[in-house]
């Protein structure tokens, strides 16, 4: 998290710290599901490393319940029973993060408390959260000023209109043919040094639904070109509600 603030205990109780292929983030859904980015499990450009999802589940580490990484580790790992990767995600396509969403089912339900609480999912009809300028908050244990953070940070970022996201992408001269699909949105600033960065992937972009008074996850930290050099791109959770609910309900 660049340009953010340290989170206090209980600010983002849904925040998960994952260690699957390096550091990542995730968000607690209900009492036994972790919503995260697919590429934290199956990184792009990993080559011919064909490890099975069962093996990955066996080796995955998920931590919940604290803002300090050391304390998180002390509180113990939450074993993963199964991993669900969205079928649209293609780990071989380096430039297309469409379907960058995954679910981890924990072996044991967690006991909720001040430090561990789930995030809500958005209402299927509510698209206002993605309107240009709608502010959200992203938390994460990712890189800040080139150092990976040992404490949870957060930053507030506005959602950006799709045209602006695309326009900015087109203007980038780096030649990366990144795909901006309809299942994504971008947020952040062009010049203000506030952004998410490596290690924040999988963490959720949340907004406060003033109607219900609940915090709602609208996006998943997915990709960007550098950090704090422009907009960041997030998986649009609204488009994956059916998939999420389908898996959660079936596994119940």
């Amino acid at each position, binding site marked *: 998290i660049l340009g953010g603030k340290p989170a206090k*205990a*209980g600010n983002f109780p849904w925040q998960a710290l994952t260690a699957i292929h390096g550091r990542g983030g995730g968000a607690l*859904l209900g009492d036994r599901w972790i919503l995260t980015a697919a590429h934290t499990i199956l990184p792009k450009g990993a080559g011919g490393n064909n490890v099975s999802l069962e093996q990955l589940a066996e080796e995955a580490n998920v931590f919940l319940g604290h803002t300090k990484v050391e304390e998180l580790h002390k509180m113990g790992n939450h074993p993963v029973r199964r991993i669900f990767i969205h079928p649209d995600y293609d780990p071989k396509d380096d430039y297309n993060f469409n379907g960058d969403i995954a679910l981890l089912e924990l072996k044991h339900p967690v006991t*909720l408390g001040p430090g561990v609480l*789930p995030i809500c999912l958005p209402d299927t009809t509510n698209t206002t959260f993605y309107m240009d300028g709608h502010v959200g908050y992203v938390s994460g244990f990712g890189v800040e000023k080139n150092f990976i953070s040992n404490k949870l940070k957060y930053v507030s970022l506005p959602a950006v209109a799709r045209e602006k996201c695309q326009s900015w992408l087109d203007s980038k001269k780096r030649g990366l043919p990144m795909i901006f699909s309809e299942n994504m949105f971008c947020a952040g600033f062009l010049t203000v040094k506030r952004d998410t960065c490596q290690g924040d992937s999988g963490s959720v972009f949340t907004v406060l639904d003033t109607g219900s008074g*609940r915090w*709602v996850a609208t996006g998943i930290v997915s990709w960007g070109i550098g950090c704090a050099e422009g907009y960041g791109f997030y998986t649009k959770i609204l488009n994956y509600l059916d998939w999420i609910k389908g898996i959660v309900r079936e596994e119940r």
Partner: protein
Amino acid sequence: SSPVPRKLFGEIRSPGYPKPYPNNNISIWNIHVPKGYVVKLTFKYFDLEPSESCFYDYVKIKADKKNLGRYCGQLGSTTGNHPGRKEFVSKGNRMHLAFHSDFSNEDNGTVIPYRGFLAYYQAVDLDECDPNNAVEEEERPQCQHFCHNYVGGYFCSCRTGYQLQSDHHSCKVECSSELFTEASGYLSSPEYPQPYPEDLRCNYSIRLPKGLSIILKFLEPFEIDDHQQVHCPYDQLKIQARGRQIGEFCGTESPGSIETNSNEVDILFLTDESGFSRGWKIHYTSEKIRCPQPVPRDQFTIIRDLQPVYQFQDYFVVSCKTGYNLMEGNRKLLSFTAVCQADGTWHQSMPRCEIVNCGSPTDLTNGAFIYVNEPANNSYQSVITYQCNKPYYDIVTGTGGDSFTCSSEGTWVDQDGQVRIPTCLPVCGKPVSPITEVQR
């Protein structure tokens, strides 16, 4: 003189009959019928020389050492003694007939041919039981109690409690093993209400099927020799039920009515060598033996259709009020029936009713329950309410709500009667300490 063969009937004719009888003739017939019969003689035809007092010719009839008459003459004659249709009946089984004719049958020089007689006799059954028929005192049949006549004979019998002796006439008291098996009846001391004999050893046994109880009711008069100071020293009436003596009686005060509660009763009557008491008489009846009235052990027990009296083979059914279980020891019963047995006891003892216990309510994951009413226990009609650990969980209930009551079936049920407990679901998006932006 010719004996008449011992037949049951026959005829006797004068010599030469139907030809005139000879003169100077004496003929004798001794009629002898079998014992048990008497002789009845009638003259079919009688024609003898009439004379005053039958001096000349006559027929003389004797029986039982008595003359039954002297007869002569003709039917319609003014002199003589014609028997006509008279029946001559003996008292014994013999009859003697004698015929006598004199030297002539002339009347004024004319010989009259008197033809004689033809008589019929038959054996008639002697009713030995009629005292008027006794021939002699010593021959009178003397049945001591009852005489029964039949054709050609008789026999004696005795009253109840007496036995015919070897002489077939006398009766002696026999009451050593009198057995009664009917549902009701009468029994009494010998000769009752006449004074009972001495030296009695009477034993009257009443035996009825199991399940029946014998009731003895003494009738009046009741009179057994007794003593002012000593209890029943002379004669005793002992009543035993199932081998156990339930009373020894004497005096003049009737024991009244005795319920023996037994299907087997023995009555012993012992008398000494003297006394002049009238004895006793009992009317016994029987009814199905009774069992004790069932009484509930507690206020929660219900006896269905309680009867005023319970007898052999009757039964009662027990249930409990709603919310209580039938218990026998530590065992729960689904039902209970007790049957009145032949010995007057119930085949099972009364159970008790114990309040239903639902056991500890199911624990609610991420929640808890509290007892709503006092005392806080798991008994019937206890109420609990489930709650979730707020603010992290919210309760999700069925249509029956979050309150559960211990039902009569022993399960915790909600207001809809469902047993499924609520669920605590996570509350999302409600951090305890949400971020608060201060500076603008």
